């Protein structure tokens, strides 16, 4: 009987040690921290539990057995908690994920740092194209864009520059599928590289304005709720983006960033065009005109913004709206530089053409467009005080509009408001903001 106990104890100890040895091997050989943790906690707990039981059997007293069983129960109860906490912190600290991992279900749900040894987190890199640039860390994006324009020799100035890379802002909202689809259409037409940027600004989630009495307690809670909603929306948009990219033959990359909006615009600045879904603010909530994400990005004026509210059937006519918003002198340049829709006729719309500087500006823009081989079909004049219905009629049949701003306020404290911009924004599918 005692011999039987001894044999059982020996076998338990030996098998436990074997499991622990395999766990140690796994800790050395497995490719990423998450797999290593799987080896360490699961196998380690089973191994040390078996060894404790074996030792208790080997001693053989009742007290030893009680201690051994208690120890095993304690290990089984605590190790899931410990490993869960460790895995969560490993994910947040940006521990690298091995390329064998199929999907990152936590993308957009938890914040994630960039681990410094492997820059960037391009999860899936396939569809190798021969002239792919090497991925640059975030600081280098703006530099590469400037260099790209500098290599353009004066002799080639007449040829339109091609769209090399574009960024889709994955923020969710009703227009997100259209924005993703338009981005992939453009990329398929020009061979540009698509970067899906699921960007979240944690500051946008916090509630601004007055807080009622005793509200500080729940305003933080509400801010957290908003942040979680933003992450969920971004994750949904990201999943959609990845589903689309797996079907399309386009070079795609995915980035996730959580920074202030100013930093985020800088991240997107290296690309030639930023595609943004319409009618949402930086927090992903519904917004109008000046508060929109597209308007905010365009105000940063780092790269042209394409605001997508729905996916047009085909782009047949483009309106170029010239008024006197600050961004107006850049409209034609943005059209030429991005090389969007090179063969589509342009209609130059002058708002308030009786004012001299608008007329001069329109002339300048038309000349620039003609110099670059664009077809300026007609020049349309619109009075400053045109009725809303008139403008809606005018905009019939335009699939895309290049305009200086989503909404324009002038005069003292923005007293004069030109609602031409707002008609444009609500009526047309694609709005290019330089």
């Amino acid at each position, binding site marked *: 009987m005692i011999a039987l106990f001894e044999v059982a104890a020996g076998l338990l100890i030996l098998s436990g040690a074997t499991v622990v040895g395999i766990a*140690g091997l796994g800790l050395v050989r497995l490719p990423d921290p998450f797999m290593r943790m799987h080896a360490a906690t699961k196998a380690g707990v089973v191994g040390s539990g078996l060894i404790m039981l074996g030792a208790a059997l*080997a001693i053989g007293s009742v007290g030893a057995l009680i*201690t051994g069983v*208690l120890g095993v129960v304690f290990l089984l109860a605590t190790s899931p908690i410990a490993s869960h906490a460790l895995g969560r912190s490993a994910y947040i600290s*940006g521990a690298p994920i091995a390329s064998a991992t199929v999907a990152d279900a936590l993308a957009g749900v938890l914040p994630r740092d960039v681990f410094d040894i492997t820059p960037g987190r391009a999860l899936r890199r396939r569809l190798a194209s021969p002239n792919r640039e090497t991925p640059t860390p975030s600081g280098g994006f703006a530099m590469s864009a400037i260099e790209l324009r500098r290599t353009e020799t004066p002799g080639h100035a007449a040829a339109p520059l091609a769209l090399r890379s574009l960024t889709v802002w994955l923020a969710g909202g009703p227009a997100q599928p259209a924005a993703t689809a338009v981005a992939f259409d453009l990329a398929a037409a020009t061979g540009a590289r698509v970067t899906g940027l699921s960007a979240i600004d944690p500051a946008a989630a916090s509630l601004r304005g007055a807080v009622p009495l005793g509200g500080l307690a729940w305003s933080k809670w509400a801010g957290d709720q908003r942040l979680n909603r933003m992450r969920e929306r971004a994750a949904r948009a990201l999943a959609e983006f990845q589903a689309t990219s797996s079907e399309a033959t386009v070079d795609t990359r995915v980035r996730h960033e959580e920074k202030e909006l100013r930093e985020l615009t800088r991240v997107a600045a290296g690309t030639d065009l930023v595609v943004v879904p319409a009618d949402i603010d930086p927090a992903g909530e519904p917004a109008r005109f000046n508060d929109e994400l597209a308007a905010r990005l365009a105000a940063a004026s780092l790269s042209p913004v394409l605001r997508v509210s729905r996916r047009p059937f085909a782009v047949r006519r483009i309106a170029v709206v010239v008024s006197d918003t600050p961004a107006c002198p850049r409209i034609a340049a943005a059209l030429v530089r991005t090389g969007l829709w090179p063969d589509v006729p342009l209609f130059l719309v002058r708002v308030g053409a009786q004012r001299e500087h608008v007329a001069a500006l329109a002339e300048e823009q038309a000349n620039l467009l003609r110099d670059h081989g664009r077809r300026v079909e007609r020049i349309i004049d619109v009075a400053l005080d045109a009725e809303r219905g008139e403008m809606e009629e005018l905009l019939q049949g335009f699939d895309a509009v290049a305009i200086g701003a989503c909404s324009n306020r002038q005069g003292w404290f923005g007293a004069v408001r030109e609602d031409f911009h707002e008609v444009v924004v609500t009526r047309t599918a694609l709005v290019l903001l330089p």
Partner: protein
Amino acid sequence: MSFLGICVYASTVIVATAVVAVSWRLLRGPSSADRVIATDMLGLLAICLTALTAALTGFQAYLDIAFGIAIFGFLSAVAFAALLERASSPKEPAE
């Protein structure tokens, strides 16, 4: 030497090898998450070694020591996780 003795000595050798392997991972990294995981695993290995000592010497007190090490290992794992999470939260610059 009895069957139990052979088993315990063999197990000690295996666990010692695992200690070497885990220490290598602890020194090597590369990320701090790896090091924390290796530290956690070292705690489990310490439990194993203490339990093996109990089986070798026949002192029941060593099992109680193993139990204590298990408690400290759990606490240290949770504390390390909280530290790692706070060190890399987006509000503060990462270490």
